[in-house]
């Protein structure tokens, strides 16, 4: 026998009430629903443990921000007690929500903004790898060869190149993460390399070549030379070799 539809609806409402209050540690609403012998203190043990774990996970994944945010731990603690974890939270989705919530709570300096961008982009790359795991693995297999042979990668002009599929583009507003003196905003690409995430700064010609590669790869170097006829061929070749060496491009 199945429960009647209205009983199912009541159950949905019941769980909504419990979950919404317990998700932010507000346990008083559960008192009347508890079985005999149980008190709100029992529920509080459960919710405090959950909030502590959530805090620790956020604290770990936002470690980088501690360099530029005073009192980050208290800010995270406020967040977990204020904003409930979304259903079906996976990977770094809670940290990303925190980063969207942060500017609503305080105005960020350009340097703080770049730190936030850095963490967000790293999460974006991870999320991409999660959803395209086979593409990530296949590319890394090819890239491990391409990285070793980067110097001779152009020996065969008919060899095709593809761009690392696990990547994300952004612009830094400051030079806090950039060694060189370059104009800002500075275009960067975050990408997976083996099981790490790397960042590459694109110079003005690199931006042009990379945009072309994103648009038409897989492509041969000769075709790329044709498409960048106005540019110095050596500059294009160097970009391709350098990109292969760092794991941004690989032979197909």
């Amino acid at each position, binding site marked *: 026998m199945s429960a009647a539809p209205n*009983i199912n609806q009541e159950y949905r409402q019941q769980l909504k009430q*419990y*979950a*919404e209050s317990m998700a932010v540690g507000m346990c008083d609403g559960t008192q009347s*629903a508890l079985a005999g012998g149980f008190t709100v203190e029992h529920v509080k*043990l459960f919710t405090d443990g959950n909030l502590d774990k959530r805090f620790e996970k956020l604290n770990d994944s936002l470690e980088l921000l501690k360099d530029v945010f005073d009192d980050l731990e208290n800010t995270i603690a406020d967040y977990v007690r204020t904003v409930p974890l979304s259903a079906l939270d996976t990977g770094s989705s809670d940290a990303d929500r925190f980063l969207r919530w942060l500017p609503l709570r305080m105005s960020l300096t350009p340097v703080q903004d770049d730190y936030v961008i850095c963490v967000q982009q790293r999460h974006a790359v991870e999320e991409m*790898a999660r959803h395209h795991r086979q593409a990530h693995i296949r590319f890394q297999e090819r890239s491990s060869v391409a990285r070793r042979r980067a110097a001779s990668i152009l020996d065969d002009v008919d060899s095709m190149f593809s761009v690392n599929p696990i990547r994300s583009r952004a612009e830094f507003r400051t030079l806090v993460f950039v060694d060189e003196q370059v104009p800002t905003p500075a275009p960067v690409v975050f990408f997976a390399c083996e*099981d790490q995430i790397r960042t590459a700064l694109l110079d003005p010609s690199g931006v042009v070549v990379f945009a072309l590669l994103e648009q038409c790869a897989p492509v041969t170097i000769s075709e790329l030379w044709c498409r960048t006829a106005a540019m110095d061929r050596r500059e294009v070749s160097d970009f391709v070799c350098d990109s292969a060496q760092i794991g941004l491009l690989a032979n197909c």
Partner: protein
Amino acid sequence: MPPAVGYAIREQNRPILTDPSINAAEITFERADDPLRLDRYIRDLEFDYVSVHALKLSVASPDPPTRSYIDALLAIAEENGAQSISDHLGFTRDANSGVEMGHFAPPPFNDAALDATCRNVDFIQRHFSSRHFFLENIAYLFRFEGTMSEIQFLKKVLTRTGCGWLLDVTNVFANCRNFGGDPYEFISEVIPCASRVQMHLAGGFQDDEAGMYIDSHSHPVPDDVWDLYQFALEQGAGKVDAVFLERDQNFPDEKGWRDEIRRVRLLAEQQELPL
């Protein structure tokens, strides 16, 4: 055949996973879900039995789990050659568009929760097809008012859905010790309703402030749980597929890891010996 025996894999026990007493492994999905990882979670190891242990199917929620989560579980299972997938008898969220509590709570043991749980387990089993699904009894710190006991609820879920029971021996021990009830009766009543059985063993500690035994996976398995484990092996004879030892804190040294799993193996093999 004695059940396959192994650890829930943690980085700390990887060095001893080739111990001859180990022929099974449990993969906690949330740990294996490292998107940049290139090799299999179990790497180049081979086991007779592998199970993927999930935390967020939330089987007692009114909504079924999402296809994307189920597909992600299946992908990890496929990659590591897992025969089964398991999760907990509880809810971690109210609905798919709602909020997540961060850990599973027991549902109110009533008809509506039973209906939702069975509907979701059926849904899950349809999608897992050839892989067995096991449902674990949880250790809880509180319980909602219901219309039936946990034993009755669990028996009905197992009977109606045909899914396996991941009998967490320590959880049975902890709940009975904390809130009353006979752990032996719990096991002997429920186990006949289970089509297949897996087991979890772990050790916790007595929190005097809370006045409760906390299933923290932080200590060796206590003697009371070993006794209960032996009893569970007898009761489940012939249908226990695997036994997994869990440890998440205060990790032992190499000898400690090996000694405890060898005891799990020894007791399982003794159970198989003819009288």
